[in-house]
């Protein structure tokens, strides 16, 4: 039986040995990394939302708005840059990062508002307290490498600071998705290695991961049996060191 245990251990190590090493090395990195820095929020500040001075009763009544937008699932009051708006949900995802669709309606004029480059930039600036200036603004409709889970089109506002901060603002709702910077990308790289997420889908439930995990079980259990066997045979002797 021990022949087979050794064989399994050797062949499993050949198949996945390198990844096991990557797992340990990246795992050790998570252990020593500065988690506050890795969040990418060094230059992030809370959006200052002053309650608008206009009383709720002076806003356009919600009934009127809902009559103009009949396919609404939920209406919420929202403050965008201290201006009152109604956020109408037309398609509702279980989480905000899952596909959602919205209308943003100005609560004073009733005007349909789009989060264009200008508004997105203003929201990003309001959330940013770093030294940088805006370098570029891009609308990303495909997967965002900094936020792979986000499935709704988002504006990427890039700042020219020392950390290469990027701010993401959701196009449909004006929601601040988050900040990212070189520190976060550094940590994300190790997460990518640890999760074998080489397609950067933001998931560890992938086929390659399951396959490797399965082989790892063979590696560790054969190693365990081998070690127990050596212990019983008296192969662990201190004087031999």
């Amino acid at each position: 039986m021990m022949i087979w245990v050794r064989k399994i251990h050797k062949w499993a190590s050949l198949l996945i040995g390198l990844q096991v090493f990557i797992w340990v090395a990246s795992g050790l990195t998570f252990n020593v990394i500065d988690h506050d820095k890795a969040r990418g929020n060094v230059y992030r500040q809370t959006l200052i939302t002053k309650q608008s001075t206009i009383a709720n009763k002076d806003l356009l009544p919600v009934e009127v708005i809902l009559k103009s937008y009949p396919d609404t699932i939920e209406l919420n009051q929202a403050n965008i840059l201290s201006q009152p708006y109604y956020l109408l949900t037309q398609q509702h995802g279980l989480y905000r990062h899952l596909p959602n669709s919205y209308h943003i309606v100005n609560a004073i004029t009733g005007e349909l508002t789009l989060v264009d480059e200008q508004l997105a930039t203003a929201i990003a600036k309001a959330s940013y307290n770093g030294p940088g200036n805006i370098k570029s603004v891009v609308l990303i409709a495909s997967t965002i490498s900094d936020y792979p889970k986000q499935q709704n089109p988002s504006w990427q506002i890039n700042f020219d600071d020392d950390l290469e901060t990027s701010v993401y603002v959701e196009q449909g709702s004006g929601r601040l998705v988050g900040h990212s910077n070189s520190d976060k990308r550094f940590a994300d790289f190790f997460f990518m290695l640890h999760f074998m997420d080489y397609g950067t889908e933001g998931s560890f439930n992938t086929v390659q991961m399951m396959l490797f995990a399965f082989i790892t079980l063979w590696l560790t259990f054969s190693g365990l049996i081998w070690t127990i066997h050596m212990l019983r045979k008296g192969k662990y002797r201190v004087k031999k060191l």
Partner: protein
Amino acid sequence: MVCAAALTLLTNASGIFIVENDTINTKKIKPKTIRKKPFKLFNFSHKLHKWLMLFIGAQFVIWSVTGTYMVFFDIDYIHGDSLVVTHQSKINPENLTYPSQALFQQYPRAKNLSVGLLIDREVYRFNIAKQQYIIDAHSGELLSPLTKNTATAIAKHFYTGDGGVINAELISSNPPFGLRERHLPVWQVNFDHFSSPTLYISANNGKAVGKRHQFWYIFDWMFRLHIMDYGDEQDPSNWLLFFIASLAFFAALSGLVLTYFKVIKPMISSGKKRANTAKKTPQDSQLSVGDKA
């Protein structure tokens, strides 16, 4: 020079002799081999791997078992996403017969007004200071805090499974593990299923604020074991993990060295041998040419 010497030493250690190297290097190596304990990467790695794994091998077993659990169970399933329906029912504006103006008159300090559905009826949700309220948009009737019957009906409305409700309990303080305090008060509605699913329905806004089942609690345990968190910090930067992972680094590295000597190298040399025996004459002449060069 040293490199070449080391290479030969290594090949000797693994019991493989490459003829062309030996012929060149034998003379230069002899003084080295006289030394009492020459550094042999294979022997060193072998001892290191053997001894380190005696002490931390168990953690490798734990890492592989917990890691396998975490990657095999879909994380969305673990989060209980499949326990709830995301309803897409639309608001019928005709049903808003209790006007929002009346609401603001009755509750002048109401903030963050929202209009939505509570199962199938239109409701207004708002908060006064930190307290949330729901009122029926048809009649203006105050619905919060929700009764047990309403909360159970909402939970059933969200739940995707077939099993019935076992019990419902109002939690106003000390949230159970896995539920944030800010969601209180909530109705904890338990369903009949082997994974014991629970939906948490906010008593003040009627929304499903939590969904848990046994697989989530197991996942949580697996994660703690994976990051060696035996307190309750949920923090991967603990000293125990640092100590064990640092040793694991060398254990894995030495394992890689062993894999090279015990698996990869024999494969290469047996491949060469096979090639040698297959085409003996042409291969030999090629090798001798290579040697001279």
